């Protein structure tokens, strides 16, 4: 029987008047990636903070690499790395000095700490910026340095709390590639995210969290089947012809085409390739003029509407960077 890398049972966290976690179970096999998906305030960060020994749970138990997060906290800290959305690096130190400091605090010894700092800067393509102060770094560079800091002691388990929140699309893709490279070397990863596409790309399994409760768990495909896949949205020049359009498109749809608002026809599709060309040909043959047509992917909101019947609430609301992004936006 193989030991689980992360195992949590009935994890609860009660703040003064808020129940942040209402008893969640999580298991992560060694060498795999679990994506914890949920909106702000779902309890993602609280779960990470408990699993990384920063917060004691109010109830339940959790073990990481077989070590209890409360009773064996000190021994556990040597086996985990943490990187987060706040990019916890020291702005007034250079990239090299940051990594060296973390290495020495992991008790690697000064020569080993320097050696690790050099090799990580190289690997994260920060070697040229290594002697510059971090305050001169871009947002993406800071995140990469933060991630490198989590890897200094080469820990078997890494926790990434919203690693790409607030990053521009190019930096996101670059950070994804870095995380993928890390995973390919056998590291176990638990990452939290608000983005379905991020979980889809990086995670072997996805756990969906809402209001401190685990509402779904499975592979990306299992989850998508619950939510529904991609769909084609067709807007006609003449809205009175939507009935004819539905009839013309039914043959290429993977489900029943709908038109809820009387203007836009929604057409579930099994695969993206060729679907637009097929739809255009059929609409053309039926003599219908198209005003607009686009492939849409399910967003986090779609997952939540499908699983909970309500939209994902963005509790800190104001920040546009925290809103879900569709797949089109990053491609």
């Amino acid at each position, binding site marked *: 029987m193989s030991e689980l890398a992360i195992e949590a049972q009935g994890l609860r966290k009660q703040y003064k008047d808020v129940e942040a976690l209402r008893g969640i179970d999580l298991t992560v096999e060694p060498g795999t990636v679990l994506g914890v998906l949920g909106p702000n305030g779902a309890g993602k960060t609280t779960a990470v903070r408990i699993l990384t020994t920063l917060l004691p749970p109010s109830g339940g138990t959790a073990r990481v690499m077989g070590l209890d997060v409360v009773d064996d906290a000190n021994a556990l800290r040597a086996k985990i790395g943490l990187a987060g959305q706040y990019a916890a690096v020291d702005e007034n130190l250079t990239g090299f000095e940051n990594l060296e400091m973390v290495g*020495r605090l992991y008790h690697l010894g000064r020569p080993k700490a320097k050696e690790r700092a050099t090799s990580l800067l190289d690997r994260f393509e920060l070697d040229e910026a290594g002697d510059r102060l971090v305050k001169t770094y871009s947002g993406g560079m800071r995140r990469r340095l933060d991630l490198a800091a989590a890897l200094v002691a080469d820990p078997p388990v890494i926790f990434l709390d919203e690693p790409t929140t607030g990053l521009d699309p190019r930096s996101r893709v670059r950070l994804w590639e870095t995380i993928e490279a890390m995973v390919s070397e056998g590291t176990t990863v638990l990452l939290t995210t608000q983005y379905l596409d991020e979980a889809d790309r990086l995670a072997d399994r996805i756990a969906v969290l809402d209001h401190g409760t685990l509402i779904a768990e499975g592979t990306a495909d299992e989850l998508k089947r619950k939510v529904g896949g991609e769909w084609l949205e067709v807007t006609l020049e003449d809205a009175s012809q939507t009935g004819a359009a539905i009839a013309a498109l039914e043959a290429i749809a993977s489900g029943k085409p709908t038109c809820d608002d009387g203007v836009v026809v929604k057409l579930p599709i099994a695969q993206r390739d060729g679907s637009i060309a097929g739809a255009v040909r059929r609409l053309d043959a039926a003599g219908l003029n198209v005003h607009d047509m686009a492939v849409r992917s399910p967003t986090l909101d779609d997952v939540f509407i499908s699983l909970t019947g309500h939209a994902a609430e963005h509790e800190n609301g104001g920040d546009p960077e925290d809103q879900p992004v569709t797949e089109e936006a990053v491609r």
Partner: protein
Amino acid sequence: MTGVSALIGDTLVLAQRNLIRIVRAPDLLTAFTVQPVMFVLLFVYVFGGAIAVPPAFDGYADFLIPGIVVQNIAFGGFATALGLADDLNRGLIDRFRSLPMARAAVLAGRTVADIATNLLSLVIVVGVGLIVGFGFNESVPSIVLGFVLVLMIGYAFSWVFAYIGLSSSSPEAANAFGFMAIFPLTFISSAFVPPETMPAVLEAFANFNPFSTMVDALRSLWQGTPAGTDVWAAFVWTIAITIAFALISTAKYRRTVVK
């Protein structure tokens, strides 16, 4: 690594980090070097002529310097409050808490770094003091003991500021909070004017104020003025403040949860 050697090692790693930061932030360095000089000059030349000093002292500068030395060293821990509040805001404390390092090292690294900056500003203030008319009037061992007392006072207040830093929501708040807490305490004391010249209520407060005890002890150690029980009382106060605030700051650090 065993507990004690880990604590010492981690503390030195973080003290080194804090000192590197100070050297790179020239505005902070100004606070340790230029500001105390400015204070000495303003007090000696603006207020000096108007303040009557006890006959044991050779002019206002002679009276003032030990007072301004103690006030300056008490504020030396400011870097600790600002730095801790900053680290909390930036999530660095989270990183430290997730590392297998000694728990007390984050605070100890701060306060130990303060000793170096305190020593620097102490040398500057005393140097300027000697130029404007302050004079030592005691044996060398007694003068050295005075310097030891000053550095111990600085260390004690670093722990006070550690508590203030951990209790503040931002570096700006730590700044305001620290100023309000320490400033009146240093002024309503024997540091700048003889307490006999104050209204009765303030005089009573000044005579009870541990700052007065510390300043009078320093005057005794450096200038041979009569101190009564002040010298050993000053050491007791200093050690008591250090222990009390080291304990409550460490407890506060353990409980601190970053938003």
